[in-house]
């Protein structure tokens, strides 16, 4: 990514996503890992990665897609999909009210944003989970949006990239949530059979029903540094086996060592790395090689 793109002013959507990612107002932010005080504008330029300890902080879905896709020619997909409360689920609070709160707080209809665009000039469909919406959990709306985005990739025969950040299936939609695992896996199998590349990009955290479906089915599975991903959460495992978990359990580095992912990609490299990887899978020229079309203007 060029330095120009890094410092370009963000659109209103990106600003909104940042607010929803829990970054407090004010000029300084403490790194949640090394506690170094960080100057906010500098942190933003650094894509919310701590310059001191390289901790990759969580970012919202729109910010993610904004820093990933080329600035021009983006189209949001499946905007009409809304969550449905088929069970009329109620615990201490109505699920409908929980949804309304989450929508108000995040400005999103549900926990997935899907976009069609280009990456270093090559067409791509990208989706990202919004973790601040109900813990990025997957119910009907997330499954449906993902499926429609995958269908678009299939029609265009262009790659699909998914940035996951989720606690898993959404309890409040019960078995309908569970079935989204089968649904998203089925459409991904169609992509696989048709030779359309799919990259699962895991960002902190990825658990449960999403881990056990769309997040593990990539032609390439990759993860951000330090991201945690697994089927059962650490608490559940500790309760079951009654022992402490080893340090670094379920972190990206553990996943790499155990053969679950192909590589760890730092946020600053994700555009270039994915563009080059995908171009190889598609038999295209290296979009970043000398003489290839220049990176699209970053003013955008």
């Amino acid at each position, binding site marked *: 990514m060029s330095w120009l793109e890094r410092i370009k002013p963000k659109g209103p959507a990106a600003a909104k996503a940042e607010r929803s990612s829990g970054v407090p107002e004010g000029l300084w932010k403490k790194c949640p890992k090394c506690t170094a005080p960080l100057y906010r504008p500098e942190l933003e330029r650094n894509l919310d990665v701590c310059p001191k300890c390289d901790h990759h902080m969580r970012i919202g879905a729109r910010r993610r897609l904004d820093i990933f896709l080329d600035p021009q020619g983006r189209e949001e997909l499946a905007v009409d999909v809304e969550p449905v409360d*088929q069970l009329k689920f109620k*615990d201490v609070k109505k699920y409908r009210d929980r949804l309304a709160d989450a929508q108000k707080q995040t400005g999103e209809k549900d926990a997935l944003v899907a976009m069609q665009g280009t990456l270093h000039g090559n067409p791509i469909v990208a989706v990202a989970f919004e973790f601040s919406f109900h813990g990025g959990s997957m119910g009907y709306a997330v499954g449906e949006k993902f499926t429609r985005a995958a269908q678009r990739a299939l029609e265009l025969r262009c790659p699909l990239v998914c940035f996951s950040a989720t606690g898993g299936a959404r*309890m409040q939609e019960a078995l309908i949530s569970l079935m989204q*695992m*089968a649904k998203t896996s*089925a459409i991904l199998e169609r992509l696989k*059979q048709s030779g359309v590349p799919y990259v699962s990009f895991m960002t902190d955290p990825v658990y449960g029903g999403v881990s056990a479906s769309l997040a593990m*089915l990539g032609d390439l599975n990759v993860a951000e540094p330090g991201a945690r991903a697994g089927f059962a959460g650490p608490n559940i495992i500790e309760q079951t086996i009654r022992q402490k978990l080893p340090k670094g359990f379920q972190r990206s580095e553990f996943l790499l060592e*155990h053969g679950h992912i192909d590589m760890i990609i730092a946020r600053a490299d994700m555009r270039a790395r994915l563009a080059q990887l995908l171009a190889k899978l598609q038999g295209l020229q290296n979009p970043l090689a000398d003489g290839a079309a220049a990176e699209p203007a970053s003013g955008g």
Partner: protein
Amino acid sequence: MNLNYLAFEQPIAELEAKIEELQLVGSDNDLNIADEVAKLRAKSTKLTESIYAKLSAWQIVQVARHPQRPYALDYISRVFDDWDELHGDRHFGDDRAIVAGIARLDGRPVAVIGEEKGRGVSEKVKRNFGMPKPEGYRKALRLMEMAERFNMPVITLIDTPGAYPGIDSEERNISEAIARNLAVMSRLKTPIICTVIGEGSSGGALAIGVGDKINMLQYATYFVISPEGCANIIWKTSDKAPDAAEAMGVTSSNLQRLGIVDETIAEPLGGAHRDIDAVAATLKATLIKQLAQLSALPEETLLENRFQRLMGYGRPA
């Protein structure tokens, strides 16, 4: 408290105890006692009927987990003939929480895959209480792909408290094992019939649960997270599990209404353990009927119907 009966069945247990006592006393053909026993029997049946007529979701969860509830192997021996169990995933090991093999259903060769909780302490330990690890799901996948090559329909029996949440499970990528099964089952070129016979818990159940027909026994349950787990997260206490079970709609009648379950297989009064042969016979008849329906479809239609059903999950009617 009689452990053969669940907490909410204790009034039935008391009556049955009384009947037993009377029978012991009345072995010297006393007519009055015979009358009394008959009366009590009728009363016990009536009581069972009235209790079972209005079971709560949580009570159904209890029946589904009843210690005497028939498990996969109980059905396999009664529904299928000529059963050969096959072992191992060819990569790591043989997970006994999943039994898999080939058998005949009404003469026709089929592949059978079931989650098995195991009866008795040592058997339960051997079978990890029905909680499969990655190698269990990979063994199932191996069998399914073999079934596809040899034109054998796949019959699955679902009964698990969940995929095993342990360090080794995670190290060997339990998520991938489940996900891979979901993907492959969505396009496997042979009919797949899945039946929840007891407890269908989350991804560990779904990993052998994608198919052309989804059945549930009447008092089986199917959920995205156990009622206790759901209660722990929302109410911060597992005491609220009954409320969670109610809210999640874990029963066959609810799931049939949502279009997730096709057919509910009736159980005898008081649950499947009261008459295993009868339930097995009903299950067998259902499987034979459904297999005939699915076999009549051209392969393309079978697969397209399965795919469209998957795509439709959750879409508002």
